[in-house]
């Protein structure tokens, strides 16, 4: 609990999470799930629920603590959401949470996966088992996804000519192999351990965008990539979304990523540290931001300067 509580909170804070699900940004809410957590002040210091509520459209269908929770306080150490017997009335919410994918591929973990033999975390957020995921897709799907990835890579990495999936003939492990144009005709084949960080991150990003239709969380997808490619990332995500309706939430510090004029100020959340905790505001709700966006400025030009630390100018003159 100490890791998720707000640093600005007073003693024994309630931690609340409130999620609203709708078909689109302008559609009415379909589901709402709200949960409150607290830690026992003594004893085993177990986390327990202060509330758990579910709404379907506007009707409240669950409101805990119920009478039985008051009689048996141990019930409050478990949510109804996580139990099949109790979540049958709102299984859509369960499926939504189960489908959420977080991706922050660390190229070195993928490149040296064999030699490190490290433990892979649940849901593989750092992409150690990315090649296994590619291998698990059925052949036809894999081929069609890799063709799209290859098409995009050819633009970002002009020397790359062909990208294909293969298994090592000796160990049977899955690999990606790319053919790079070279003056020596047979020297251009390289495996993923020789790909650049940017190439590996771009492959995993594109694959994940094509992989499913649930919520995808991308952390700083601009890392290791040329600004020219990063500036095209927002339209690329939007064009892939058209067919798959995969909602994507991106965190970024990149000016290039936010230069696309089509980014709607209503889709951007500005996180600003303040004394009473980080303030989160919808960019379009900030009057001066709204005015500037309406006058043709991009989110990158308007919103990013707001997130700059006030003393950043002194960073280069520490002595």
């Amino acid at each position, binding site marked *: 609990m100490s890791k998720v509580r707000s640093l600005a909170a007073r003693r024994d804070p309630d931690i609340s999470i409130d999620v609203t699900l709708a078909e689109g940004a302008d559609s009415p809410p379909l589901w709402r799930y709200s949960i409150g957590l607290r830690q026992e002040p003594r004893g085993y210091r177990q986390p327990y629920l202060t509330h758990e509520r579910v709404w379907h459209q506007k009707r409240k269908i669950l409101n805990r603590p119920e009478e039985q929770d008051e009689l048996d306080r141990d019930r409050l150490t478990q949510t109804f959401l996580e139990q099949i017997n109790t979540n049958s009335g709102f299984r859509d919410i369960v499926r939504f949470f189960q489908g959420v994918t977080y991706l922050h591929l660390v190229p070195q973990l993928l490149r040296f996966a064999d030699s490190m033999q490290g433990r892979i975390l649940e849901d593989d957020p750092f992409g150690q088992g990315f090649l296994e995921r590619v291998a698990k897709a059925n052949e036809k799907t894999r081929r069609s996804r890799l063709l799209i990835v290859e098409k995009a890579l050819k633009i970002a990495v002009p020397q790359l000519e062909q990208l294909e999936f293969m298994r090592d003939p000796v160990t049977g492990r899955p690999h990606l192999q790319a053919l790079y144009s070279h003056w020596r005709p047979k020297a251009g084949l390289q495996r993923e351990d020789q790909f650049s960080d940017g190439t590996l991150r771009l492959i995993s990003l594109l694959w994940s965008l094509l992989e499913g239709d649930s919520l995808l969380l991308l952390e700083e997808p601009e890392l290791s990539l040329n600004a020219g490619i990063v500036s095209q990332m927002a339209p690329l995500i939007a064009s892939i979304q058209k067919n798959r309706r995969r909602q994507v939430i991106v965190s970024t510090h990149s000016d290039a990523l936010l230069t696309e004029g089509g980014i709607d100020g209503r889709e951007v959340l500005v996180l600003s540290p303040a004394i009473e905790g980080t303030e989160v505001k919808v960019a379009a709700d900030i*009057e*001066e*931001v*709204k*005015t*500037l966006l*309406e*006058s*043709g*400025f991009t989110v990158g*030009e*308007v919103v990013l*300067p*707001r997130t700059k630390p006030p003393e950043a*100018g002194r960073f280069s003159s520490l002595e």
Partner: protein
Amino acid sequence: MRKTMTILAVEDELSEAVSRKILDHYGLEVHQVMGLRGKGYLEKSAHGLNHAAKGLPIFMLTDLDSPNQCPPGLIRSWIKGEKHQRFFLRVAVMEVESMNHGRPGRFCGISVHTHPPDTRKY
């Protein structure tokens, strides 16, 4: 009393510091800084900021840089149209740095000894 909200557009950190001091003196509060990407960006943005001034007052400070141009000429060529009354485009002759001498320098609390002399000679 609540201060008036202003958008500031400048070419660098030095101009930002000087502008903030000026705006503070007139009871204006900076809510948004635009630019900090050199003079070319300000020139490109002037037309859009003039449009945005319909919503909020905007203060832009730039350097004249060259004796071959005059401030009113620079303002006309940047805005390309009618200037909105709440768009304040001010031009430092020749550089914001030259404000360290004389009254502007005293206003900003800058010592005459910490900066180069008259920038017109450079």
